[in-house]
């Protein structure tokens, strides 16, 4: 039964990875073409997330796997923080303080295990590995809240023709995706640190959340033409 669930969990994990890879590459292509920072930052987040997940899946018992997974996880959280600040709260001093704290925490996720000589240890995740998950939990939670707040203002702008009619709903998709990603990292940490055992296998639920998050990111950045046409008709602009 346990093995079946583990194998089943690989299906959403694989799908999620594929969607993440495609969206990440497309965003990086737009960034290369137009020299825009938000596309570059979030495209990098997607690729770093994928690298971190694959290196953890393939080598979480080896020093190299732990190092690559932690390093890319910390880099992903840092880049996500930069994306959130640059895009959603560019003029907030408090946000810059929050970003500095996130960068310091991400640096500590790599530095502390290195100082403790913990790479390759069997107890790595229990003792240190959860740190890289927690900085991502913070980054995605922050992103979800910032995007949800922006969505309301964008909706009001759209009503006056001051923003694209679909931007508010696409930001809403991104916000929900960030919340799902946050929970997908939070659940294993809860299981480990607080001893809260949730129904079913954590890996399976996390994988389900990951595929929901990556699908919503795809819908946010590259919505299908049928959806765009339908939404524009609803907004009276088709």
């Amino acid at each position: 039964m346990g093995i079946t669930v583990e194998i089943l969990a690989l299906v959403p994990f694989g799908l999620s990875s594929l969607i993440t890879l495609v969206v990440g590459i497309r965003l990086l292509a737009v960034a290369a073409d137009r020299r825009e920072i938000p596309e570059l930052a979030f495209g990098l987040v997607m690729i770093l997330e994928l690298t971190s997940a694959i290196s953890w899946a393939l080598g979480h018992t080896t020093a190299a796997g732990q190092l690559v997974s932690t390093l890319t996880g910390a880099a992903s959280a840092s880049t996500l923080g930069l994306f959130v600040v640059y895009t959603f709260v560019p003029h907030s001093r408090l946000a810059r303080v929050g970003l500095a704290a996130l960068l310091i925490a991400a640096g500590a996720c790599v530095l502390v295990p290195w100082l403790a000589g913990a790479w390759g240890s069997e107890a790595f995740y229990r003792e240190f590995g959860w740190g890289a998950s927690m900085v991502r939990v913070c980054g995605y939670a922050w992103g979800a809240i910032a995007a949800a707040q922006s969505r309301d203002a964008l909706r009001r702008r759209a009503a006056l023709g001051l923003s694209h009619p679909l931007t508010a709903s696409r930001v809403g998709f991104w916000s929900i995706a960030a919340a799902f990603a946050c929970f997908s990292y939070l659940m294993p940490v809860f299981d480990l640190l607080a001893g809260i055992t949730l129904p079913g296998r954590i890996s399976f639920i996390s994988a389900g959340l990951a595929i929901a998050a990556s699908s919503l990111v795809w819908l946010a950045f590259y919505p299908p033409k049928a959806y765009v046409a339908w939404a524009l008709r609803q907004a009276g602009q088709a």
Partner: protein
Amino acid sequence: MRSRVFEQVSEMLERRTGMSRLEARGTTRIALKSAGLDPNHVNRDQMLVVIAKVLPGELLERGVDDAHAVCEFVASLVKSESPDEKADAAGDRIDGLFRRTL
């Protein structure tokens, strides 16, 4: 720091409607908020939309009888006197990002 066009519109409202400085600035701020805009980073073109579509209602609510005439006057001054600055509010960055990837 508020944007130049915000200061200009608030000042003109104060002069034309007899509102106090605080009332005029508050009214402009509320009009911008209803449009999802930030008083610190609103540009001329965005302000002109607010003056045309939101501000008359806000002025009527505050007992300004010739609200439409006041708004037309304010809009004409904004058009002639305010430079067209590039908006750099979060909303513009977000809208730009999602437009580019559509």
